[in-house]
């Protein structure tokens, strides 16, 4: 009996795996492009996998991931635009594909690759994106970097998490495959590049560091506070390690700006009520609120911001508060919230709206923040390679350091520490305010549309009313 | 000489008193029987002696050593081995290991332990089943297994809780012969038993419990004739 059971087991396994693979492959045709690239991988890799298992030569890489998944998709593109390629060049995408952001970033990178290939590729070589799933874990990220290096990728893109970045930092010098990260905001990374250039020069970040993020938030905070003579601010933050740099920067900057941290309230990701946070902030006489989350707290925050009728300006950032559907999802309770957005659908550069529209109609959702930078990062590398005329790292890096690239998210110029420069005319976040369902840009001032109004809350008989203030103020 | 002394032990479970001020003493190399109707506290007394339960009052003294607060396992090492009323073995372990577990925790030298185990298995006639899972054995073999587990502990005192229950007359005779032989070799027994006619045959002294109190103690026939015992045992013998 048990004999049959055991045979049964393996049959079952095979059937299941086959079924899942088949379904995944079929589902692909109907779903959006990233998934196409993903699922096409399936069919492609299956054959690959079979051959590997068929001839168990350890010299051939045993990983079915070896198949450059997107070949299929790029080929389909190629079919439409007949371009002669000299050959193929692989670029790695090291991303937490088990998170939405990872999938969106991969989609953006793939989108960039397709566009580049449609224009004839890089140095006449067809760009092939090789994805690797880090599962948001440092160890897997390290394995992924080695794997990609072994696949002969010329550059590794993505790298969203700071822990993932730190995990691969010491490998860079060993493998000499450069990284153009989008995300990984830890300032440690910048320090490392500055301290030991030779070991870490392969690291680039087509995004800003945590300190710069904090700086951007503080610019508008300081400006608004000056305008309305606020001196006490309350800070509501997600108590996870990523906010530590913001706290550190806040301590320094608040003294320069002559502001006092009236209340700092840390919350957990699975929070259900901000009543206590607002109560503390209000009772400590704060005049303005700064909020920073990375999870789904935005929704709860917006709800309680309205329910508690909090009569203070609340500016800050979350993962979803900048998305267009947020206002309706909260039933209009997001009214008056000021949100940071590291990429915004407004004609900052020629590329911005083009990318935004294309991305949105492909993925049925807006590009979440580092998605913009993932898209640009491939272009940055491609341009550097084009102007270097070679894929050789040692030649590409100096050019990257001098690069000034006009991308979808803004204008990229790398600092001493190989991080994108933060400045209103370079990379800079947009701050907008939710005004009756519209996202009205209020910062930086150079992009504020004429006739813009800022809604300032005021308490009248227990009810919160919005006072319209012309913006920017005279 | 006295081997085991139980001094005015009282054990309560919540409100109900399982043992009230029971005292007894067992001499070396004798077979001491304990009788009494169900719920008279026999098994509780066993649990107190073997350390599974701690008495609320009173003392247990084994070879002039107070063991009232000693772990059961340490008592086994001292030489007190017991069986349980409802047969208890380790069902998913081979017979050999059921016995070896005890042997190896009593003897530090594993060779002696092994020798001891094979000796016990031979005496109890389980050598054939040494490799089988204990759960698969017949009731008689299970009793023998429990018995063997007592033997390997190099015991001075063996406490059997209803050893004859559920055995055929022949099996009982076999068991009795083993007990007597071991007794000749200097072991001491305390036996709880309902089948009085067998107990009377082998026991030197008998104590009768009723509702947690000692009602009689002495030679088997005396106890059997004791009015309180008869009253307690109406319809049993």
């Amino acid at each position, binding site marked *: 009996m048990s004999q049959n059971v055991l045979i049964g087991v393996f049959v079952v396994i095979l059937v299941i795996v086959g079924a899942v693979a088949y379904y*995944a492959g079929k589902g692909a045709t109907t779903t959006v492009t990233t998934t196409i690239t993903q*699922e096409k991988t399936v069919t492609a890799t299956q054959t690959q996998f079979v051959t590997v298992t068929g001839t168990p030569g350890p010299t051939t890489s045993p990983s079915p991931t070896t198949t450059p998944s997107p070949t299929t998709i790029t080929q389909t593109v190629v079919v439409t635009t007949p371009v002669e390629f000299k050959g193929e060049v692989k670029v790695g995408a090291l991303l937490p594909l088990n998170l939405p952001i990872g999938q969106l970033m991969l989609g953006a990178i793939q989108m960039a690759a397709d566009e580049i290939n449609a224009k004839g590729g890089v140095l006449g070589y067809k760009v092939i994106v090789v994805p690797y799933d880090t599962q948001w874990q440092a160890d897997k990220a390290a394995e992924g970097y080695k794997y990609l290096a072994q696949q002969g990728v010329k550059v590794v893109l993505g790298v969203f998490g700071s822990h993932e970045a730190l995990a691969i930092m010491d490998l860079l010098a060993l493998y000499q495959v450069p990284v153009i990260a989008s995300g990984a905001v830890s300032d440690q990374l910048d320090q490392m590049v500055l301290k030991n250039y030779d070991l870490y020069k392969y690291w680039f970040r087509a995004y800003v560091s945590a300190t710069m993020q904090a700086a951007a938030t503080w610019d508008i905070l300081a400006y608004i506070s000056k305008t309305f003579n606020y001196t006490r601010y309350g800070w509501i933050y997600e108590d996870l390690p990523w906010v530590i740099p913001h706290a550190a920067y806040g301590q320094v900057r608040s003294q320069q700006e002559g502001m006092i941290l009236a209340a700092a309230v840390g919350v957990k990701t699975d929070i259900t009520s901000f009543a206590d946070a607002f109560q503390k902030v209000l009772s400590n006489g704060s005049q303005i609120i700064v909020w920073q989350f990375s999870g789904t707290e935005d929704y709860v925050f917006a709800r309680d911001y309205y329910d508690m009728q909090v009569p203070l300006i609340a500016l800050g950032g979350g993962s979803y508060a900048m998305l267009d559907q947020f206002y309706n999802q909260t039933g209009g309770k997001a009214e008056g919230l000021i949100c940071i957005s590291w990429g915004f659908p407004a004609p900052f550069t020629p590329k911005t709206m083009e990318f935004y529209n294309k991305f949105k109609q492909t993925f049925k959702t807006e590009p979440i923040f580092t998605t913009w930078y993932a898209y640009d990062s491939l272009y940055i590398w491609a341009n550097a390679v084009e102007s270097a005329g070679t894929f050789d790292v040692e030649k590409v890096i100096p050019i990257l350091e001098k690069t000034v690239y006009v991308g979808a998210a803004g204008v990229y110029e790398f600092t001493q520490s190989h991080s994108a420069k933060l400045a209103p005319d370079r990379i800079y976040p947009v701050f907008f305010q939710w005004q009756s369902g519209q996202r009205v840009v209020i910062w930086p001032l150079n992009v504020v549309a004429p006739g813009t109004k800022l809604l300032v809350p005021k308490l009248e008989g227990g009810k919160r009313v919005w006072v319209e203030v012309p913006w920017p103020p005279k | 000489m006295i081997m085991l002394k139980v001094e005015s032990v009282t054990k309560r479970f919540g409100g109900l008193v399982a043992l009230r001020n029971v005292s007894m003493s067992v001499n070396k190399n004798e077979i001491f029987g304990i009788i009494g109707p169900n719920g008279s506290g026999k098994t509780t007394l066993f649990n107190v002696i073997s350390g599974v339960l701690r008495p609320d009052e009173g003392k247990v003294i084994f070879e002039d050593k107070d063991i009232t607060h000693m772990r059961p396992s340490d008592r086994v090492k001292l030489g007190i081995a017991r069986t349980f009323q409802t047969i208890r*073995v*380790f069902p998913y372990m081979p017979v050999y290991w059921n016995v070896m577990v005890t042997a190896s*925790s009593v003897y530090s030298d594993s060779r002696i332990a092994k020798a001891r185990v094979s000796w016990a298995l031979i005496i109890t006639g389980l050598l054939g089943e040494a490799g089988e899972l204990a759960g698969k054995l017949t009731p008689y073999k299970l009793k023998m297994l429990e018995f063997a587990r007592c033997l390997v502990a190099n015991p001075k005192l063996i406490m059997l809780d209803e050893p004859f229950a559920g055995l055929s007359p022949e099996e009982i005779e076999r068991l009795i012969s083993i007990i007597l032989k071991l007794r000749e070799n200097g072991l001491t027994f305390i036996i709880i038993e309902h089948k009085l006619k067998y107990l009377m045959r082998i026991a030197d002294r008998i104590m009768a419990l009723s509702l947690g109190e000692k009602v009689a103690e002495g030679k088997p026939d005396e106890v059997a004739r004791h009015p309180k015992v008869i009253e307690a045992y109406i319809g049993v013998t």
Partner: protein
Amino acid sequence: MFRQKTVADKVRENLLGIIVLLILALLPMRANDFLLDTLVRTYIFVILAVTLDFFSGTTGYLNLGHSFIFGLSAYLTGILYVYLKIPTEIAILGAGLLGTFGSLALLLPSLRVRGVYFAILSLLYPIIFIGIVTTQPFSLYLGGEGGLRIKQLFLDIARKLPPTERLAFLHNAYYYLSFILMVASFIVLYKLAYNEFGFKLRSIGQDEELSEAAGVNTTNMKIKGFLLSAVFASYAGALYAGMRPPITVDFVNTGSILLPTLTAMIVGGAGTIIGPAIAAFLLTLLYQYLWGLVGLWRTVAYMIILLAFVLIRPQGIFFDIYLRIRRLVDKVIG
């Protein structure tokens, strides 16, 4: 029953294992770095599965806090390196030991709490640990956002070598370190699990009261058994931390550490040591390579396969398969 075994007997008995180990030991000659990397993680999980099985599989005390032991020593490694400036190589040795003793914090409740209560109680440990590590002010000192960053094991040595040899050196060093630790922990625990020691633990699992009455000092045994399982687990944690910095909460994470381990133990056949080892080995590789097969759907596929395993053979399937193969081999060599 007590016949002394000759060397030939021993070899014949363990032929299967010897062959497998030989293959694995010689693998680095042919395999590529990625496979080695994957295997390193696989071995770590084999160690975890075996250690978990040695205590929980036998005594029935389901220790859902196993990832706590693993992560604790990982963090200790980081702390030793960052705050006491101890080089990684030595920090690992120290942290393994400290972690073992630290893990006693998890054991002590088990001396009173039984069954499912112990399981949940031990599950709370990693959760609380993560909560503490990610919360200010502790998070300031325990790594902040990127995790505790320590210098990779042997990195200095590697940098001294010529570029061509560096990678090979690192990979082989890591591979063999984890391999040796895996083999050592497996052999030690396997031997123990099938002699008096192991059967005493099993007796606790089957009837703790009886086992005490049969002369086994249960408290003592539980502590010994737990420490034995903890020492290997925490050395695995420290070693892995040294090989895969930075140290983040992933080292404690129930999902990423405990889950594969527990699964391997159950699907492998609890208490058999070798079953879980095989299960951990195959399942980790399966999960790794499912990516290539079904892409994003890997977790779903993996879970369905697990479900199939469990429903077909709740007692654990890999041990049976092992026995079958072994009997086959015995037949072949007569």
